[in-house]
């Protein structure tokens, strides 16, 4: 019933990943950075699911589940850090927090 050429799936994953990468590299607001990272994780999971669909096994979906769990943990800690950053520096600009310079 489902016959989606794998190439399109992978291309979609790749493009989404690239867009997420651009977002991480360009945006200085930490929240946007986190959002872009979510996009990248999602794209990676998509690639796994596509691969799993190729073999007709649930392994790809299982991995996506794990990625999902990881993303959830990461987001919770990350947003806690965002709140802390805002409290300390009154700004969400990642270029401001460069005390490790040099």
């Amino acid at each position: 019933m489902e016959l989606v050429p794998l190439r399109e799936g992978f291309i979609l994953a790749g493009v989404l990943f690239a867009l997420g990468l651009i977002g991480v590299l360009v945006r200085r607001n930490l929240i946007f950075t986190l959002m872009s990272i979510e996009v990248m994780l999602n794209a990676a999971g998509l690639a796994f699911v596509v691969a799993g669909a190729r073999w007709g096994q649930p392994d790809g979906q299982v991995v996506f589940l794990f990625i999902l769990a990881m993303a959830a943990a990461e987001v919770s800690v990350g947003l806690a850090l965002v709140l802390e950053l805002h409290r300390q520096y009154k700004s969400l600009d990642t270029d401001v927090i460069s005390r490790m310079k040099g």
Partner: protein
Amino acid sequence: MKAAPWTCTASCREQPMMIVFYVASAVAIVSTALMITRLHAVHALLYLIVSLLAVSVVFYTLGAPFIAALEVIVYAGAIMVLFVFVVMLLNLGEQAAQAERALLKPSMWAGPSILAVILVGEFLYLLAKSSGGSSGTAMIGPREVGASLFGPYLIGVELASILLLGGLVGAYHLGWRNPSNPEVR
């Protein structure tokens, strides 16, 4: 590289699925692109949610309905909501949006775009070299996934739960304030 949808090996009954797939992927790409260029955090979040929903549709077309549902429930439903909560908590306001505009000069997009284009180019090259293939004919529903999770991937499940515990503890610790003296952590 891209096989024309009407050259698929099965009967043309699969064509609607392909159309859905393409439309959903287009929506996902466009909304992601819009997301990374917004000034307001909330706008970006909403576009992100749309992207996630589109990807969920893609999952369904790939024969992974369980994951499609999880994507909506967990990813778009919990994680993004968490984002929304935090953004609301920060109460950024119009001033922050204007600051964002100042930060987003067009020249800043050049380098990362080139890098991403090269990456995608490499990826496409690799794809072109590999043999084609298509997804399987069956839908892999929750039953198979569940059996797999309780079977061979049991350890992974336990580790994931520990990871979530770690995230929980970390978030709690970072957010804790002394009730009598809110400035002290």
